[in-house]
């Protein structure tokens, strides 16, 4: 039994113009202490998938079917109170934009105290502060700055604070939704290193959401590639790097600039993702695929385990 098991999850946004299938039949497993990279271009449903794991998909989004098991319990069946009690304590979520993730009128200390005491009401303020200080030191923020307001910190520091908040209560799973996209490149690398370091120290499992395959390739244990709401490929990162099997993954890998081949051009994939209101009949990538067969346009390929622990959704591999 894995720590987190998502099975045939489907999430729709029920808009006035029709249902948008943002997450389409997604299944995967996350083990204790594992670092999973969730990759896909904008609009592929990464955030929706992440948010559905804490059951905070914004309306009009609805989890239509599937199960999300944490330690064997399906959280879809949890009551609202039960859900509140595991958010932040068992599963944490880190948002993309650290500049807007903290309430501008509350001190950092207030964020921590309120959070800790919500989950552990017996904790005194002093104890909560002490714990906050420890975690802040862990993420590289000087504890004496705990009495400052969010606007007194830089973006990178604020993201460190968000990370500290996320790990304070020792959750088993932390989901980080593009935690570095809003930051500059050097800060980006430092924050990502911090995540792996925290994983090594505390052993929580991470789901790292990003649109940039190069970011997760060397840091994550496993990689899950999403396209138009569905999984197209799911494998160990080394395996994925050496033997990418899905044409989309192959294109993504080609898109990564490589210093060794300096004359190499950065290739964008031609075309654009499908309209999720009226998805194509067959494989959702087929309109942009250069290796397509006729049946790609009419039939939907299944996600298959082509070799152990390497899943691909493509007719080529069948």
């Amino acid at each position, binding site marked *: 039994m894995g720590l987190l098991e998502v099975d045939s999850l489907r999430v729709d946004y029920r808009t006035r113009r029709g249902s948008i299938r943002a997450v389409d039949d997604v299944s995967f497993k996350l083990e204790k202490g594992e670092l999973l990279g969730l990759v896909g271009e904008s609009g592929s449903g990464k955030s929706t998938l992440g948010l559905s794991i*804490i059951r*905070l998909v*914004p309306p009009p989004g609805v989890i239509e079917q599937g199960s999300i098991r944490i330690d064997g319990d399906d959280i879809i069946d949890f009551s*609202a109170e039960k859900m*509140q*009690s*595991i*958010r*932040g*304590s068992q599963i*944490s*979520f880190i*948002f993309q*934009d650290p500049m*807007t*993730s*903290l*309430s*501008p*009128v509350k*001190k950092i200390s207030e964020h921590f105290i*309120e*959070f800790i005491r*919500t*989950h552990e*009401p017996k904790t*005194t303020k002093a104890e909560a502060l002490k714990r906050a200080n420890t975690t802040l030191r862990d993420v590289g923020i000087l504890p004496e700055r705990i009495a400052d*307001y969010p*606007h007194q910190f830089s973006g990178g520091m604020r993201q460190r604070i*968000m990370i500290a*908040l996320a790990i304070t209560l020792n959750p088993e799973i932390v989901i980080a939704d593009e935690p570095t996209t809003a930051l500059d490149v050097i800060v980006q690398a430092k924050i990502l290193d911090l995540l792996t370091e925290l994983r090594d120290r505390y052993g929580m499992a991470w789901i790292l959401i990003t649109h940039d395959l190069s970011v997760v390739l060397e840091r994550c244990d496993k990689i899950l590639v999403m396209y138009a709401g569905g999984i197209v490929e799911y494998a160990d990162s080394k395996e994925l790097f050496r033997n990418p099997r899905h044409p989309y993954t192959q294109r993504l890998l080609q898109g990564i600039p490589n210093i060794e081949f300096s004359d190499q051009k950065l290739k964008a994939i031609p075309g654009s993702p499908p309209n999720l209101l009226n998805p194509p009949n067959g494989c959702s990538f087929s309109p942009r695929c250069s290796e397509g067969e006729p049946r790609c346009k009419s039939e939907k390929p299944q996600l298959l385990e082509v070799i152990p622990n390497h899943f691909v959704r493509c007719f080529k591999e069948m």
Partner: protein
Amino acid sequence: MGLRSYIIVRILLTIPLIMLLLSIVFLIIRVIPGDPVLLHFERKASEEAVEAMRQRLGLDKSLPIQYFEYLGGLFRGDLGRSMQDFSPVSEQIFSAFPATLELAICSMLVATTIGILLGVKASESYNSLKDHLIRAFGIIVYAMPIFFLGMIFQMIFAINFHWLPANGRFPPRLTEPRGMILFMNQPVGIAVWSFMIGLLCLALHVGLLRMKGVRFWGQGSTISLSHFMIVWIVGFTVWIVGFSYAQLNMSGVVRVSTGLFTVDSVIEGNILKFVESLRYLFLPSLTLGLVLSGVFIRLTRSNMLETLRLDFVTAAKARGLKESTVTYGYALRNAFLPILTMMGLQFATLLGGAILTETTFSWPGLGRYLVDRINFRDYTAIQGAVVYFALIVAVVNLIIDILYAYLDPRIRY
């Protein structure tokens, strides 16, 4: 710039504002038809008498001289004497002020409580039936003429049921033991009142314990019959002491120390007078508060809708904070500044006198004072009221500005 210099600059800036307003009003009241001199005489008076009165009021002088004489007085802090009864205008304003202040505070309480609570509820269930109903309610009360709503309330609560007084601020005399108010001296009334007072004491007690971190309704501790007995006994004791003390002090009018009858009666320690002043406040505050609440519903709703979409609200939910903490502690707290601005504006306007409400309920505040004096073309009184009003607006705005900095750490002066 420090806070102190900011305050000083702001106060200095209000001086030209007051001057401008005053000059305009000074001219306008002299242009509109009507003559305070003639209004002193019931029927045709002799030329000489009229001329003597004109001299006495200082209206025989040329306009510029009148203007500068008035300004001169103003800079010495003298608002002049009323043209109607010759007593100092500042004293008159000062004595009408508490009634207006009391009404302003109470109706603001009603308006903001209803407005903010309903506005938050509407935003929470955006686009649902509840949302639409609340919005409709807001528009209807906003469009409702005050005197119409006031008259309906008077008809229902005062004339039909005799629960509440329709007019005025306090009974001329507290006749009889006013124990009949809400059955305070009847057995059933005593029982109910004792229980309510006792419950209040208990609630305060529990509240204090909880603040210290003691959990009251924890596992194992159930509410037993003895709890109710204690509630009753505490309530009865408080009631007996309060009521008998009040009975001893039935001298009628409220002894004025602040001019706010609710506060004065508490200072005096007279429960009956307190209840009585609340009863008189009830209908005017409810009417005015309801009408004003429409603005607050709309403002709260739209600001909440904007704030609820922000990342820190979702982030707070993702940390497992309680729904109410997220709604009030995060969303409303951050949506509050525009609401506060509106509160300041409305409060300042109310302090200028709620003319319609005060007229409908014969409330002896500044609104009625002003109407009265305009009818009489009491130039000095009107000018005095304008100066007072400009000052009030300036002071309230200043206080709001200072509160801003207190509420939002990003704002510094």
